[in-house]
């Protein structure tokens, strides 16, 4: 598997040479799952059709969203590699005004204060489907250089970086890869872009805005574990993300970055893409493997772990797409650079989706260890009224009180569950008990039914919570708590084990409070 010395980097340099020089001036329209639902296609069409824009010859590009989804549809004016102007909440009839403003002096760079934008650095600011542009930004260079070295060097660097899985489990990537390497080839790399967790849209942003960053990460990971087959599993609802990724893979293949003997090396790797069709259980990695094998998506009993017995029984590393984007950057900039930010035990940055009753919902990138309060402040605080609670980590995450928001967001915190990274702000107008029942109902409906504690337990939990004054009645409350314990400890997979989380955290942090609502008047 050793690459011929010097050749891959030289081949990359030739590709870079052919990629030409940057485009001096461009308009970038946010376009993707968030912006499209706010009318992006019409804005794009209006700008492209505008006579003044056409006369000027300025390219109008469908870009990703820079994370300020609240401002969609946004239009960015980029000059000489800098965003110099930014229009928010643009309607199609503003095209003429934007065209007229192009001659106004603009050179102050648009920034994103409070964020540490590494993975999102180029998201929204580039043409996601332009491989030449990706090469000019240095994409695939780190991969080419890695090809000239030993795969083991990549694994060492990742291990030094302390990178952990960004899908929500935060398992050390280096250990997972070593586990995979301990088993015989052929090995597979499965990329989890399923992202079926209500409230989480960060992988979509990454794929819609900078697919080549994720592809480079896939190739580096595949080289590290000696996988010649990569399968990307994309959420069936994330068609924009999936189709941009597919086109980017095709472009990369055409340039010899994917396929046989990549960049003249002895490493060959093919990337295939497949769509899911819904189901929260696909967030469990072995259920995802079952789905890829054409079976009902249900978790497998572990061990054996996927690194030993994964896709079609072969050793398989399953990595989240944010993890792979970070992988590309670790190899590009080095482990030390990666460790410059983040919490001591948990280096690096994290993408966080912020939604609910917040002034500026969106996707932000912050160092691990940032507090939830800081993140909510970045998004403008509560939209209207005081914060009652924050749901962290999705429908099987935890409900957190406003006074608990100053804890650093790190994996494995016993109060603030980070999960795959989301904060849903719930203000005082909401009926929190009904909200919790809704989450419990979601977890019951999404139970795959394979194991009894989850299948039956989650359903009974919904029934119990539906009883009049359930948590005010000591007997019922005790029953609920006991049932939560059974589901959490006896379910087969992580999803079942986490299903009672919202109910438990609600009871612990909200209902038992002395000065809580009527329901909280626990006997």
């Amino acid at each position, binding site marked *: 598997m050793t690459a011929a010395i010097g050749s891959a980097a030289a081949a990359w340099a030739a590709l870079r040479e052919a990629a030409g020089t940057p485009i001096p001036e461009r308009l970038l329209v946010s376009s993707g799952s968030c912006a*499209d639902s706010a009318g992006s296609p019409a804005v794009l069409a209006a700008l492209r059709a505008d006579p003044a824009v056409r006369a000027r010859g300025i390219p109008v590009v469908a870009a990703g969203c820079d994370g300020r989804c609240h401002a969609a549809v946004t239009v960015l004016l980029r000059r000489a590699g800098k965003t110099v102007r930014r229009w928010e909440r643009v309607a199609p009839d503003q095209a003429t005004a934007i065209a007229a403003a192009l001659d106004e002096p603009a050179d102050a760079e648009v920034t994103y204060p409070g964020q540490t934008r590494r993975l999102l650095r180029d998201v929204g600011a580039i043409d996601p489907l332009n491989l030449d542009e990706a090469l000019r930004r240095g994409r695939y260079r780190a991969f080419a250089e890695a090809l000239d070295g030993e795969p083991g060097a990549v694994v060492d660097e990742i291990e030094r970086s302390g990178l952990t899985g960004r899908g929500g489990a935060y398992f050390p990537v280096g250990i997972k890869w070593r586990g995979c390497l301990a088993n015989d080839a052929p090995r597979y790399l499965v990329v989890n872009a399923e992202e079926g967790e209500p*409230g989480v849209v960060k992988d979509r942003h990454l794929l819609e805005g900078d697919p080549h960053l994720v592809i480079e990460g896939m190739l580096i990971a595949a080289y590290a574990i000696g996988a010649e087959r990569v399968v990307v599993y994309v959420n069936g609802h994330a068609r924009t993300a999936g189709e941009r990724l597919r086109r980017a893979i095709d472009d990369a293949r055409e340039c010899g970055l994917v396929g046989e003997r990549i960049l003249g090396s002895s490493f060959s790797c093919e990337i295939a893409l497949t*769509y899911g*069709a819904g189901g929260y259980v696909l967030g469990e990695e072995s259920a995802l493997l079952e789905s890829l094998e054409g079976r*009902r998506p249900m978790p497998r009993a572990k061990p054996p772990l996927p690194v030993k017995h994964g896709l079609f029984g072969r050793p398989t590393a399953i990595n989240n797409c944010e993890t792979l984007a970070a992988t590309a950057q670790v190899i590009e900039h080095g482990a030390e650079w990666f460790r410059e930010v983040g919490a001591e035990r948990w280096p690096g940055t994290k993408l966080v989706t912020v939604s609910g009753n917040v002034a500026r919902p969106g996707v932000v990138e912050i160092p691990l260890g940032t507090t939830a309060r800081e993140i909510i402040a970045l998004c403008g605080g509560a939209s209207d009224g005081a914060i009652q609670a924050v749901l962290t980590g999705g429908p099987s995450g935890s409900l957190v009180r406003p006074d608990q928001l100053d804890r650093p967001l790190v994996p494995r915190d016993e109060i603030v569950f980070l999960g795959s990274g989301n904060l849903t702000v719930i203000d005082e107008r909401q009926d929190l008990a009904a909200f919790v029942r809704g989450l419990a109902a*979601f977890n019951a409906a999404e139970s795959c039914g394979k194991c009894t504690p989850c299948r039956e337990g989650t359903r009974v939990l919904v029934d119990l919570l539906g009883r009049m004054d359930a948590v005010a009645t000591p007997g019922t409350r005790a029953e609920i708590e006991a049932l939560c314990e059974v589901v959490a400890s006896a379910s087969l997979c992580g999803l079942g084990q986490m299903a009672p989380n919202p109910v438990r955290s609600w009871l612990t942090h909200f209902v038992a409070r002395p000065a809580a609502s009527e329901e909280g008047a626990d006997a």
Partner: protein
Amino acid sequence: METDDANRRHGRGGLGFRTNGHVVAETPGDERQTRFRERLTEFPRERGQLLPALWAAQETLGWVTGEAIVAIAGRLRIPVSEVDGVASAYPDLQRAEPVPTVRVCSGPACTCTGAELLATALARGVRIERVPCLFACTQAPAIEIGEHVYGRMTVGRAIRLAASALPEGDER
């Protein structure tokens, strides 16, 4: 393979459709049927192709029909019952002819931003379905009509959109 032979014995092998009580269903137009059969012949006979083949059925025929289940089973050499079982495990695969519906998101962000009000108001005029999440969380509340997601919905806008997108007379 054994399954394929079993299917053939029961007259369900290959692409020859046979409807029995379980799989009988309304049939989309012949032209779409032909297109689906053609697409199906391009699928490698591998079990891993099952979900992509089910998507092909939904995309070509509009929904996963009983005949499509049988055809896929024949092509991929998987028992019909297993294909049916897999298809039923995915909420995004339609198992009956789709009726015009407004899907209202009931994810956490939309719940906090008035999704239930939208659902109640829309339900007076059109068929609605509450879905777990439309993944437009940063544009909450969101609804979906056909394949298009609309964000930042108000009751007024939702009713106007539903009225213009759904055929008349679909009141219930």
